């Protein structure tokens, strides 16, 4: 009897103890930074607050999230504002629902201007303060400011950036065979044929698989070709639906990409034939280059972190390292430099001084330099010293973004309405590399463009 009574409570207690122990593993007891130890000169303009708290959320996770927290630690110590950041991979799907229910975080880093427009149209966003707008005018180009603007109201400054349209390659292989970095799209075709002839295998490796977003790397290809073949004006008309999605110019870009993605001679080096494009994860799509089974891989600047899938730094990204990237060349050698890219926009859902102080800080050159110095990312903020970036490629990327001659366009699918940019365009790419012809795919995407 004694024993059974004993047993009755020992179970729950053991369970509670185990749960408690497991949960303490989630805590990271970092000592609060003391304002006295920090040089607060840069932060005086934001004022001081007593016990103010700002919540922030975005899709940024894990180590990238840790770096974000680190980038504003001084700001927190000096101003007394505590920033509570939550990353979620479902951020894009959830944010509109949260906003409608009045449960949105104070600040969101929205990775798609199209989504920001929708939030602004819903009336949930607080327009940016004068300090934020002044910073944006000072540090960003007019193009970038436009992505944070909806119906003439400026809602938020950009945060970080990435450049799409890099072609990754092995410098050693190029040197050994005497290959040149192509200067035009035709040169790229010639180079691909050359590599195919020399090596007897497919020169390109591609991974389009990305869970329920499968197909998006293919949209980047098409966007790069649209911008290079038809210029920025047509590109703008395309993403705003001033020309239909099944316009012959779009078909031309698709077919140019199809020369690679739909050809068994061109893809999929080290992985299989064309049918493996949709099953190969985008994270691992470029790795056959490391084994010499593939020579070229098209992916954004952020792919830098994927070259060491097991961690460490065995594979270096440098012009004399294991891998490096060149920008997808222009159609003609004397065309101006045009790049597509992505980034986040800092929007606010709560009107409060501490929120605006935080947003003003994020739009400043101080923050941009802080974050870029921590590594892995770039910013289009003109106040950033390119030398702060963590690699040769990122230094180069920042210089491209800061160059006033560069034509920068945001990733087109992020500008289109969700029904196209986050659904039918991706699905269209999957069906298209699966064998459907260009006309049919473009008609289907065009039909899915929402009327309102």
């Amino acid at each position: 009897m004694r024993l059974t009574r004993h047993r009755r409570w020992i179970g729950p207690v053991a369970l509670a103890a185990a749960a408690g122990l497991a949960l303490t593993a989630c805590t990271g007891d970092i000592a609060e930074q003391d304002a006295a130890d920090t040089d607060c000169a840069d932060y005086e303009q934001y004022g001081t607050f007593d016990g103010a708290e700002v919540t922030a959320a975005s899709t940024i996770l894990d180590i990238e999230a840790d770096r974000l927290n680190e980038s504003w630690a001084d700001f927190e110590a000096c101003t007394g504002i505590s920033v509570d950041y939550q990353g979620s991979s479902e951020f894009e799907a959830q944010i509109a629902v949260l906003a409608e229910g009045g449960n949105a975080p104070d600040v969101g880093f929205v990775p798609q201007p199209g989504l920001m427009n929708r939030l602004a149209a819903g009336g949930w966003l607080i327009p940016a303060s004068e300090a934020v707008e002044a910073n944006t005018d000072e540090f960003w180009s007019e193009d970038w400011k436009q992505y944070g603007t909806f119906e003439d109201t400026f809602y938020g400054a950009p945060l970080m950036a990435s450049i799409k349209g890099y072609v990754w390659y092995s410098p050693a292989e190029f040197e050994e065979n005497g290959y040149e970095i192509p200067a035009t799209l035709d040169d790229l075709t010639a180079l691909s044929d050359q590599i195919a002839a020399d090596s007897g295998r497919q020169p390109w490796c591609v991974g389009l698989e990305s869970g329920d977003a499968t197909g998006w790397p293919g949209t980047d290809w098409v966007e790069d070709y649209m911008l290079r073949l038809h210029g920025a004006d047509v590109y703008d008309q395309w993403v705003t639906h001033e020309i239909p999605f099944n316009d012959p110019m779009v078909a031309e870009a698709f077919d140019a990409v199809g020369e690679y993605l739909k050809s068994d001679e061109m893809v999929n080096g080290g992985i299989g034939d064309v049918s493996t494009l949709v099953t190969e994860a985008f994270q691992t799509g470029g790795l056959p280059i490391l084994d010499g089974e593939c020579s070229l891989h098209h992916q954004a600047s952020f792919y830098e972190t994927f070259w060491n899938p097991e961690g460490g730094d065995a594979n270096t990204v440098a012009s004399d390292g294991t891998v490096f990237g060149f920008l997808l060349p222009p159609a003609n050698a004397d065309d101006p430099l045009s790049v597509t890219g992505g980034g986040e926009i800092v929007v606010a859902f709560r009107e409060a001084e501490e929120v605006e102080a935080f947003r003003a800080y994020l739009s400043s050159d101080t923050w941009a330099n802080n974050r870029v110095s921590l590594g892995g990312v770039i910013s289009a903020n003109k106040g950033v010293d390119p030398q702060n970036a963590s690699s040769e490629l990122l230094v180069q990327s920042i210089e491209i973004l800061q160059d006033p001659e560069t034509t920068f366009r945001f990733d087109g699918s992020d500008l289109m309405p969700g029904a196209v940019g986050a659904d039918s365009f991706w699905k269209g790419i999957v069906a298209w590399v699966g064998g459907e012809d260009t006309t049919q795919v473009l008609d289907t995407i065009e039909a899915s463009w929402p009327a309102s």
Partner: protein
Amino acid sequence: MTTADLLGKILQVVMGLAVLAAVVGLLIFFIDKAPKKGRDYWQLALFLLPAMLFIAIGLVYPAIRTSFLAFQNNAGEWTLDNFVWMFTQPAAIRTLINTILWVALAPIISTVIGLAYAVFIDKSRGEKYYKVILFMPIAISFVGAGVIWGFVYDYNGVGDQIGVLNALVVAFGGDPVQWLQTDPINTILLIVIMIWIQTGFAMVLLSAAIKGVPTEQIEAAQLDGTNAWQRFRNVTVPGIRGALVVVFTTISIATLKVFDIVRTMTAGNFNTSVVANEMYTQAFRASEIGRGSALALILFVFVLPIVIYNVNVLRKQREIR
């Protein structure tokens, strides 16, 4: 998160539970003190109140709101565009056809296999173990099942096949197939996963029902000189009709709602999408709340007759008893 935060959160949970206990206690106290006259009704009403409240907030209100949203576009104007889209776009039509295919195949096949299995192992030695084997998949979540079957259907462009199905095909001298990318076999292969999960459920319920068929009836039929098939057809099946209907309709409804399998295996690509998956994609990924709601409404219309049939059969059975 710091330890202080964690302690704070644990305290919050404990406080929440305490408040809930207090409210329930108070409610029961007042029910007990209800006026003598019509006491039964007071008690009934108060006990039903919390459940009714939650149903109203969690079920009735969202259902009504979804119905309205289905007839609106993103700008909030009234329109039938969402339904026009659903019945004219090839991709959307394919979603509806796939869903019908799922409901046509999964419930029938799982019920038939479950019934046959239950009959064959009935009263055999080691019945318990046979049951456990077939019942195990039901303990696995749909997402987990998706991961497991992902390995079965795996395809390798170069090198050895690690997918069981392709390894078999290659062993018999065939060429490996990209199972999940090949339309229409991919939808059938996804349905197989559903059948694999649901057969155990059908078997356990039907096995219990078979044991409930009176032995006298079976013995009487035996004395009349019937063979095993006739006994099964004319005594056992009518005896377990109620269980059969419950099993069949439950699996049908589960099949109509299928989302996880499609989402983890193909994400609705390669013409495998079903209504529930498309509903989520449209409403949350594509931000087309109206289209998502319209699909939800259609799903509701599909489920309704099954539920009505289920309720009707059960009511008739009660009348017979």
